[in-house]
């Protein structure tokens, strides 16, 4: 593979490299026009689907920030997102160095409560994205290593990668773990493995199947229990004022992103879904950061400016696409690539859509109640934990509300319940006459279908429908 043997990697190598590259991205965002010129001029060096020793460390990040195709104001907003990431990684690396507690928080859960204890939270799944900074083959290498050590091959690669990263000390050991029973069986299974391997006590959320008052109450009770767990284990009380301050920021963060989602209903779409994907990653890693809020606000203003002028994210929007099921972590450039190649704009997707509620911060009880509702409605969780209608109703709503021309289903290898719902999704699309491309891939692991393969399948799909 041309990448050094994982067993020789220095501990935390990828996180340290990520920190460096994020700082570079932040610097570029300070001079967005110049950055875009540089990124555009350098495109032949990193845009073709070929990773070389020369572009290996930069290809993913350059493509993810648009490869010179993102508007300057959006790029500037990304800079604040990079700062939010940096803030968290700096804390994590510092805590790791000093032997201070680090609490793993599984994706699709709130890290907000951890912040209220002034303790460092770490999203243990983050290398699924940031592992690509090292090389776009690095996630596959960690996954392969986890499989070689006995992790079941059929598990979702997102969590296999966690196991690989833990075994090879690319993520810090947790003091405590916060995990949940959703979105899938792999989480149920691998959470137990991670607890066993690390020996760290876990707090496990049992995510309710339904979305009703009883379910929200159930989550709410568990959140109170989580506070008790953290207070006992950390030996200190929750700081309610800090929690409130943080939630006020989160409310604004969610408001801005929710507004962007709404504006993308316009034809042409004033925003690209990559912005909301980027924001989702920020949310996952460090949503309580003031930098995260600044990013959301800047993104909102940038998209709103275009919306008010009736301008699209591409000059000539030809096709409006719904990307359904999780996005392809190793190919986040898909958004800008489709825009550039086909004038096809992904206007909505599974992850980026913000459907959380505004949290009433007037009392402790209302904050926990609001957090329970937010947690149940976070992307992936809200669609995956219950009956298929939680997936298909939202999908059909997108068809209507976003005037979608076609759908691309990113059928992820680890997603058993997703594939078990594929027939229902197909029937709905057929009935509505909605053209759909069903990709069979692994969103973290290029060994199934690589970037070139995805580009080829999408190109053929567009050609067959006369869009290319």
């Amino acid at each position, binding site marked *: 593979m041309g990448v050094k043997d994982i067993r020789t990697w220095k501990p935390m190598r990828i996180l340290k490299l990520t920190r460096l590259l994020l700082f570079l991205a932040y610097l570029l965002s300070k001079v967005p026009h110049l950055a875009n010129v540089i990124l555009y001029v350098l495109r032949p060096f990193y845009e073709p689907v070929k990773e070389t020793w020369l572009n290996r460390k930069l290809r993913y990040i350059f493509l993810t920030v648009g490869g010179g195709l993102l508007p300057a104001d959006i790029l500037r907003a990304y800079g604040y997102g990079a700062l939010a990431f940096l803030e968290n990684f700096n804390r994590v690396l510092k805590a790791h160095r000093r032997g201070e507690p680090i609490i793993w928080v599984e994706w699709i859960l709130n890290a907000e409560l951890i912040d209220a204890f002034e303790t460092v939270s770490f999203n243990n799944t983050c290398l699924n994205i940031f592992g690509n900074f090292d090389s776009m083959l690095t996630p596959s290498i960690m996954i392969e290593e986890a499989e070689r050590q006995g992790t079941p091959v059929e598990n979702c690669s997102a969590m296999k990668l966690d196991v690989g990263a833990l075994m090879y000390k690319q993520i810090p050991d947790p003091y405590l773990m916060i995990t949940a029973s959703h979105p899938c069986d*792999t989480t149920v299974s691998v959470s137990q493995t991670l607890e066993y391997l690390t020996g760290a006590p876990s707090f496990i959320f049992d995510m309710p199947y*339904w979305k009703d008052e009883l379910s929200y109450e159930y989550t709410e009770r568990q959140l109170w229990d989580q506070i008790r767990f953290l207070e006992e284990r950390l030996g200190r009380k929750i700081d309610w004022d800090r929690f409130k301050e943080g939630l006020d920021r989160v409310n604004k963060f969610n408001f801005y992103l929710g507004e962007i989602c709404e504006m993308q209903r316009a034809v042409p779409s004033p925003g690209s879904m990559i912005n909301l994907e980027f924001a989702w990653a920020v949310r996952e890693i460090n949503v309580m950061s003031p930098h995260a809020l600044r990013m959301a606000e800047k993104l909102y203003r940038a998209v709103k400016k275009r919306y008010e002028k009736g301008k699209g994210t591409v000059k000539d929007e030809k096709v409006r696409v719904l990307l359904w099921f999780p996005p392809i972590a190793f190919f986040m450039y898909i958004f800008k690539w489709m825009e550039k190649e086909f004038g096809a704009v992904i206007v909505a997707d599974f992850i980026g859509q913000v459907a959380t509620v505004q949290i009433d911060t007037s009392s402790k009880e209302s904050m926990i109640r609001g957090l329970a509702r937010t947690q149940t409605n976070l992307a992936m969780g809200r669609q995956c934990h219950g*009956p298929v209608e939680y997936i298909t109703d939202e999908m059909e709503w997108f068809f209507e509300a976003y005037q979608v021309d076609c759908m691309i289903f990113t059928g992820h290898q680890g997603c058993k*319940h997703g594939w078990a719902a594929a027939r229902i999704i197909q029937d709905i699309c057929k009935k509505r006459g909605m053209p759909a491309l069903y990709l069979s891939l692994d969103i973290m692991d290029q060994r199934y279908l690589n970037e070139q393969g995805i580009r080829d399948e999408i190109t053929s799909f567009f050609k067959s429908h006369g869009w290319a």
Partner: protein
Amino acid sequence: MGIMDDTIKKLTSLARGDSNEYLEKAAKQGKKIIGYFCSYVPKEVIHAAGFVPYRMRAVDSGGTTEGDKYFSAINCSFVRHCFHKAIKGDFNFLDGVVFSNGCDHSRRIYDNWRHADLKPDFRHMFVAPHIITHISLDRFKDEVREFKRKLEEHFNVEITEEALRESIRLYNKKRALLADLYESRKQDIIPLRGSELLGIMLAITMMPVEDALSLLEDVKRELAGRQASGKDDIRIYLASGCLEEIDHLELIEECGGAIVADNICFGARHMDMPVDETAAPIEGLAGRYLGHVSCPRMMNDFMRRMEFMHHAINDFSAEAVIAEKLKFCDIWGGEIYLIRQELKKRGVPLLALERELHIPAQGQIRTRLQALFEQIINQRATAVRLDERMIK
């Protein structure tokens, strides 16, 4: 073998079909037959309504072709077989089906069943928590109450407290009888083979509990003096999820194994732990169904499952563990990984098998079983030699 083992033979023979005379008789008497998918569904509630709980199965499915139209190739063979049967109409005798969020594969049966609009029209999703805590226990009680209410509403019946208490009493009796059968396998020469016990379990989970009790009494009588294993057979603890293939267990036995204890759906998870008859019925049911030896879907219970296994290994003198999973089962895949780590520490041999339901792949499995058993026979021989040296 004992002289009189007619009931065992009869039950293992019934187990190879998906209906039987007892079920048909109950249906003729006007009793509703309610299918259920998971060992976390409280059967007593169904029984207290005057109905017959029927454990869903893929036995005699004849393939997966119809199921494959709804489920993908990465979904487990149990759901594909089962759905194939449902589409073929094999479950048309059911008056209701209770689905469960047992795993990602099985919970989508509920969705596809509704999408395909298959019979019957009572389709209920019973949601079991993934953790065992005081909060989830309360949630579970609510779920049992909701299940009771739905049955009452749909079928226009009343499930009284007295009826629930009587059902609990009967099912506890059934559990006690099964526990006796299990206990009998502590003997050096076991009176009941694992394959036979699986057959009994399959049969008695598709008939009225009253009939099951009478048949189990007969089985218990037949065990007196019965010898079903050889003296050198290797004693096995079996851990698995959905396992309903009698042939598969017979293969283990043919190779020289004697299954003496288990944690499988049609095994310990069905009979472990009685319902507390002194508690209010719903409380008692919730306590039992959340507290019995768990399936790996319960996220905070691995060490207790291991304790159960270790006790069983000691009590039943098991020499090795066979842990099995169906292909694409995340939950049992992870569990086997953890079991392997724990058994390594304790020096217990483990054979981890992956299989497709009702597709025997007998050659491969036989080879792997033979390898395991040879290893254990060698260990025995070494232990004997060491003992002899010590004596000298």
